């Protein structure tokens, strides 16, 4: 890992407030390698064109590259191309399932289960659905260390449970949930499972057949691709049963005022001109991380997590929020009673980008009885030297604030 990898990320080589940039906000969004930047540039310079329509050369080329990207995504998560729907991101993936699956199959009295540590985007669409249908949202409680309580989850499951929706990895704390076991238990009562893969795809191999999840959503921008593109995977037989999410061009076979027939999968859920270069950038990003190897990435990030945990704990008064046994490279922390925002500003002043606040997880913050945390999240282009520099910067900030 390193110099050669860092050279692929032009944005990392700059100074912020006179100090070399240290980018530790990867859970919010990741930086882009040249392979991705070039793919977007090539699209606009060489073959920008609308897809699936024109017979001309550029349209064919754009269609081919876009569909190649779909193929790459399908292979990456071990699905078929018909099961890969391009969407805007994780948020849209959840909303699509809540709307197209939920509206059709959820009835009054049904139950939907989420966990106490979900991102708002994996809570609010389900709340809206429950409100509309008279269904009930049930919540899996967590421990103080940030792990879901599996026995409590089993108790929540019943024949009323129709959907279980849970993150693979928590964005706020980094906890990795036992999703395979969660899915198996849900299937035993006949529920379908949506996995929020937003934080998992950047760090781990995700195999939808092995997990046996029914739906998986993730965001391109968090896996080193452009913004505004993401994926909804769904099992083919489920996608077939669902109604379209939006109407328009692309998603139809034929339109007349007597009636319209919908297109086949995966186009049924892709109304309108899609985010073509976004899709292409996602294919490029997945090819890029597969070249490095997700096993290598995971192993290196585990090293960064262990090193970062040790170094950060050397800062007097620092406590780590979220100490699950199984964790991704995310460190949420607080120092004494210092407001996270003050630490964020003083780290920024030293060139370091972290996230402060509730991380779109207000119910989790309520549960932990805090307003927010500071969060450093590492990617494979980060280094131990950056962790050292951050620990020192933290010590300086804490001294000023104490």
């Amino acid at each position, binding site marked *: 890992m390193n110099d050669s990898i860092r050279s692929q990320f032009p944005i990392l080589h700059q100074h912020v407030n006179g100090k070399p940039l240290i980018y530790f906000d990867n859970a919010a969004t990741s930086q882009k390698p040249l392979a991705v930047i070039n793919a977007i540039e090539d699209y606009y310079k060489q073959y920008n064109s609308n897809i699936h329509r024109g017979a001309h050369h550029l349209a064919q080329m754009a269609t081919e590259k876009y569909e190649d990207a779909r193929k790459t995504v399908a292979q990456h998560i071990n699905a078929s191309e018909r099961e890969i729907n391009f969407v805007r991101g994780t948020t849209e993936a959840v909303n699509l399932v809540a709307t197209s699956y939920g509206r059709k199959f959820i009835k009054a009295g049904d139950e939907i289960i989420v966990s106490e540590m979900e991102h708002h985007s994996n809570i609010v669409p389900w709340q809206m659905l429950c409100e509309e249908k008279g269904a009930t949202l049930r919540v899996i409680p967590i421990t103080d260390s940030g792990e879901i309580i599996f026995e409590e989850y089993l108790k929540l499951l019943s024949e009323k449970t129709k959907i279980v929706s849970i993150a693979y990895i928590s964005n706020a704390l980094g906890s990795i949930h036992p999703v395979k076991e969660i899915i198996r238990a849900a299937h035993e009562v006949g529920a379908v499972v949506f996995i929020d893969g937003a934080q998992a795809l950047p760090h781990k191999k995700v195999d939808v057949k092995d997990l046996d999840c029914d739906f998986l959503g993730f965001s391109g921008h968090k896996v080193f691709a452009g913004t505004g593109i993401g994926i909804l995977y769904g099992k083919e037989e489920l996608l077939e049963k669902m109604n379209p999410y939006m109407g328009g061009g692309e998603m139809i076979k034929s339109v007349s005022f007597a009636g319209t027939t919908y297109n086949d999968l995966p186009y049924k859920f892709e109304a309108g001109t899609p985010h073509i270069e976004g899709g292409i950038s996602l294919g490029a990003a997945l090819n890029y991380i597969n070249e490095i190897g997700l096993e290598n990435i995971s192993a290196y990030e585990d090293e960064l997590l262990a090193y970062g945990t040790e170094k950060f704990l050397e800062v007097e008064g620092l406590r780590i929020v979220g100490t699950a046994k199984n964790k991704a490279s995310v460190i949420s922390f607080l120092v004494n009673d*210092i407001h996270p925002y*003050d630490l964020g500003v003083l780290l920024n002043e030293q060139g370091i980008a972290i996230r402060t606040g509730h991380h779109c997880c207000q119910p989790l913050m309520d549960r932990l009885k805090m307003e927010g945390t500071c969060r450093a999240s590492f990617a494979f282009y980060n280094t131990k030297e950056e962790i050292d520099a951050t620990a020192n910067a933290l010590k300086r900030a804490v001294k*000023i604030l104490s």
Partner: protein
Amino acid sequence: MQKSVGDIENEIVEEFELFDDQMDKYEYIIDIGKKLPALDAKYMTDDFLVKGCQSKVWLHAYEKDGQLFFEADSNTAITKGIIALLVRVLSGQSAKEIISSPLSFIDKINLRAHLSSQRSNGLSSMIVKMKAYASAFS
């Protein structure tokens, strides 16, 4: 004798000239905040919150012998330092002086340059609120 707004502003500008390093400026601002007298808990309610600030800022004003006095607090150290600077300049002045002061020291010490746009809006909200108190008492 109460110093004029202009004199206090000049003092602050001179104090800031001692620092080249932005971290030192922050340290100075935070220290000013630490010295701000505690605000009575009865004023730390939503009624006294300055709206438009990302961090919480509570501001209370009272009049005595034709002068307006400010007391404030914040839940974050940097914002508390910023409101403390404003209190130092404006507390004890006449309503007329508060309303008419352009507060040019803010640009002279380059305070906004390092504030996020939300914080900069917050700073503007604090000033608006202080001037509104002055209008109400004038």
